[in-house]
């Protein structure tokens, strides 16, 4: 073409144009021909697929489960003698969806329907139970599609249930057709599927799955709930440890994305492990204290006056006036002790309106609070609380090792160490240790966060424990209801407990004498009117008592060695986050 243009005569141009036009037409004709060919081919394929799809009723998207029928989970379940119409309608339903363990092929008669209904049950097997003992059994199971990968005539799926997953295989053969394999490969990730499969032993262990010795050969697969094709985050990315991601260029998911799409993030094995451990902490807390004779109480969260101090409370409108959300169950715990309950604990939400955007503060968290009356010395309270904590740690160490290892895969950390009985240091000793390390602090100063962390490291080096109690804090830095030390007015009968160098509990012997309480309140310049009912509760005989409270999320975070409390809170609340 270019040569002809180079010659440049208009006649020749016209000739060229017509030639061009000719060529164009030729090309278009070719295209059309190709298209027609393709279409013909497709049509032919379609026909062939339609013809060849012998497995049409063994896969597909099920109708939405609206409780159309009840399939008993075990054959011996009493389903009851169904009426004939009911049987017929459910048999029709079964045929349409290809359900039921019997094969409903071709024509069915009422007798056939009745026969098939004898086996009207489907026992769904859990993925964690797929062990070599189940080899050569035909089982049904419901799980999520973790990944699906087609490879020629086969499609490999990984089916996942909570922290367990298993490899499954759809292969073209006498049970499955090409279309079925294609369908399986196209199921979107995270969809929930019902699968009927034969359990087969594998010679080589499947390293990437939790069930390493078996795989499933799928005979039937139905999608129960389809997931959207574009997920906001990928689960493999969410489970990847941070260090790896940077090196290989593979993505990890950052925290905000996780928190915005918490529903998907919580499906990861790590999140499942963290929250199971958290549930264990709560349960061990309750069990240990109940065994010690404590009574669980529930305290009100809408209160009339701020308990800890005026600055950090949420206000709610309460009919014509306003009320506050409780910062801690302090007042009510103490009232229970004055009401002769002797030893109480409570588990409930705590609301702190602190505008601190740190790794360890939330505006709403779960508080585990203890209060008990003692006989002669507040160390009885410390011993009780530390013993409870040690029992919790032992319970986690002995019963939740799988969860701890799972979390460690993504967030590696040192295992948690503790001493029994718990190490108790005095504030003066801590000051001496810090001064030896070069920190300058006055005798009555409070410990700042970096000093607390340094002290934690020093204690860890000397005693090799991540959990210890610091006793006899200076009176000046504690709230007004703390009992002063009997021998030295500079100090108080109060204590803090630390895990991995961070404070988890603040407690003390409380002032149970209304006279002294009034004095201390005046000294701290607190309006007596606001705490009148609090002081009144001690006027009718109050036993000496003390206690403390821990935050569930912070304890879990520090036990596992995580770095942000939002990882241990399911739907965290902080000054910048109110949803989900």
């Amino acid at each position, binding site marked *: 073409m270019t040569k002809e243009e180079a010659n440049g005569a208009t006649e020749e141009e016209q000739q060229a144009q017509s030639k061009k036009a000719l060529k164009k037409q030729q090309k278009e004709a070719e295209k059309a021909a190709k298209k027609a060919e393709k279409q013909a081919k497709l049509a032919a394929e379609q026909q062939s697929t339609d013809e060849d799809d012998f497995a049409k009723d063994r896969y597909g998207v099920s109708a939405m489960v609206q409780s159309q029928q009840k399939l008993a989970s075990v054959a011996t379940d009493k389903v009851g003698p169904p009426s004939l119409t009911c049987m017929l309608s459910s048999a029709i339903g079964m045929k349409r969806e290809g359900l039921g363990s019997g094969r409903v092929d071709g024509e069915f008669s009422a007798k056939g329907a009745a026969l098939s209904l004898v086996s009207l049950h489907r026992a769904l097997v859990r993925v964690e139970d797929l062990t070599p003992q189940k080899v050569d059994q035909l089982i049904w199971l419901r799980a999520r599609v973790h990944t699906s990968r087609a490879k020629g005539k086969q499609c490999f799926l990984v089916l996942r249930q909570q922290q367990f997953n298993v490899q499954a295989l759809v292969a073209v053969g006498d049970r499955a057709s090409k279309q079925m394999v294609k369908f399986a490969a196209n199921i979107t990730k995270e969809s929930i599927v019902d699968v009927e499969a034969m359990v087969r032993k594998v010679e080589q262990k499947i390293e990437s799955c939790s069930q390493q010795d078996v795989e499933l050969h799928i005979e039937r697969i139905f999608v129960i709930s389809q997931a959207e094709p574009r997920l906001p985050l990928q689960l493999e990315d969410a489970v990847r440890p941070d260090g790896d991601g940077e090196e290989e260029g593979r993505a990890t998911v950052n925290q905000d994305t996780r928190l915005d799409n918490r529903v998907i993030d919580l499906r990861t094995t790590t999140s499942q492990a963290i929250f199971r451990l958290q549930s264990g902490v709560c349960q061990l807390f309750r069990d240990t204290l109940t065994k010690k004779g404590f009574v669980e109480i529930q305290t009100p969260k809408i209160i009339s006056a701020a308990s800890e101090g005026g600055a950090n409370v949420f206000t709610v409108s309460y009919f014509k006036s306003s009320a506050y959300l409780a910062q801690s169950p302090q007042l009510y715990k103490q009232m229970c002790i004055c009401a002769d309950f002797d030893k109480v604990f409570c588990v409930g939400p705590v609301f702190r309106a602190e505008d601190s955007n740190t790794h360890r503060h939330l505006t709403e968290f779960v508080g585990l609070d203890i209060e008990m009356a003692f006989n002669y010395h507040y160390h009885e309270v410390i011993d009780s609380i530390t013993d409870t904590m040690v029992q919790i740690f032992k319970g986690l160490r002995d019963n939740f090792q799988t969860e701890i290892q799972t979390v460690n895969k993504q967030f590696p950390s040192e295992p948690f160490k503790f001493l029994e009985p718990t190490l108790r240091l005095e504030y003066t*000793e801590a000051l*001496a240790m810090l001064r*030896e390390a070069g920190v300058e602090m006055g005798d009555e100063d409070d410990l700042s966060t970096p000093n607390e962390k340094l002290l934690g490291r020093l204690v860890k080096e*000397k005693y090799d424990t991540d959990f210890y109690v610091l006793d006899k804090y200076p009176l000046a830095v504690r709230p007004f209801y703390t009992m002063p030390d009997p021998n030295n007015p500079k100090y108080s009968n109060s204590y803090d407990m630390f895990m991995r160098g961070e404070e988890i509990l603040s407690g003390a012997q409380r002032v149970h004498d209304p006279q002294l309480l009034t004095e201390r309140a005046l000294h701290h310049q607190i309006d007596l009117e606001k705490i009148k009912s609090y002081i009144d509760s001690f006027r009718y005989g109050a036993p000496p008592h003390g206690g403390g409270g821990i935050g569930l999320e912070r304890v879990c975070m520090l036990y596992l060695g995580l770095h942000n409390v939002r990882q241990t809170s399911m739907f965290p609340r902080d000054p910048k986050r109110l949803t989900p």
Partner: protein
Amino acid sequence: MSMYQVKPVSPDIKIDLPTCMYKLPNIHMRQENSCSSDHALQNGDVDPTVRALEARQDEIMRKLYELKAAVEGLAKTVTTPDADLDVTVSSSLSSKSSSCDIFKATKNLDALLGKDLGALRDIVINANPAQPPLTLLVLHSLLCQHYRVLSTVHVHSSVSSVPPQLLSCLGPKHADSYARHMFQLGFTLIWKDVPKLEMKFSIRNMCPIEGEANVARFLFKLLAPYPSDPAVATLVDSWVDIAFYQLADGSSKDRAAVLRALGSALGRAPWLCGPEFSLADIAFYCCLSQNGSTSATGANVQRWIKSCENLGHFGPAKLLLK
């Protein structure tokens, strides 16, 4: 209640009292005069002169008992070489006569352990429950006699459980143990899964000390200085090392050789390192007891074992071995 007055029936007549009887003071008159003197003569109290007499009597009795104990001690001293006083003697005397103890206590902890920063000086020892350190328990009981020691036992999370006698090996809890600042020294024993025994004291200034022999040396120096003669000091050190490395950890041939050397050394002097009791004796006694080879030894060694036991310091070790 006022009553009518009656005039005295008989006027003051002088009565001649017989002189063959002894006179008793008038009870009634005594009561009238009792306001100035000690009128608390009721309830079984005695006259001050009687009290003085009793006190003198008690003093004499006490001195007699002391003499008796001293004589008994001397009798035992004849058999036990170079023990100033036996344990029976020291227990009967008052506690402030600490000069009777074997070790001249160096009370100057500041010189030994560094300036007191106002807090408890805590010695932390991590030991494996499979190999309890008897030497350290013996030294701990000696330390308790010289200083106010706060002893605590902990179990580390690396160990799931320990037998109860290991939990109470440092003796009963001190009544004042809730107030840590009232003690001069802290002795914290942690049962932990460690390959070698280690001791930590000051994180900043000291590295951890490993090995029972070395920790024993550290603790011993808190009680008494090493012998000033360098030859004797070296001898003590070498015997300590022999005790821990050849006797405790060595093969049976090593052990036999050590026992022979022990026998010959004890033939020349009452204690291992000459005339004075030292750390080497403590170390050897504990290692021998732990080994269980106290019976299979010569006459010299047997005699020395008896002398050690007479001293009474090895009580905690024997308790643990039971």
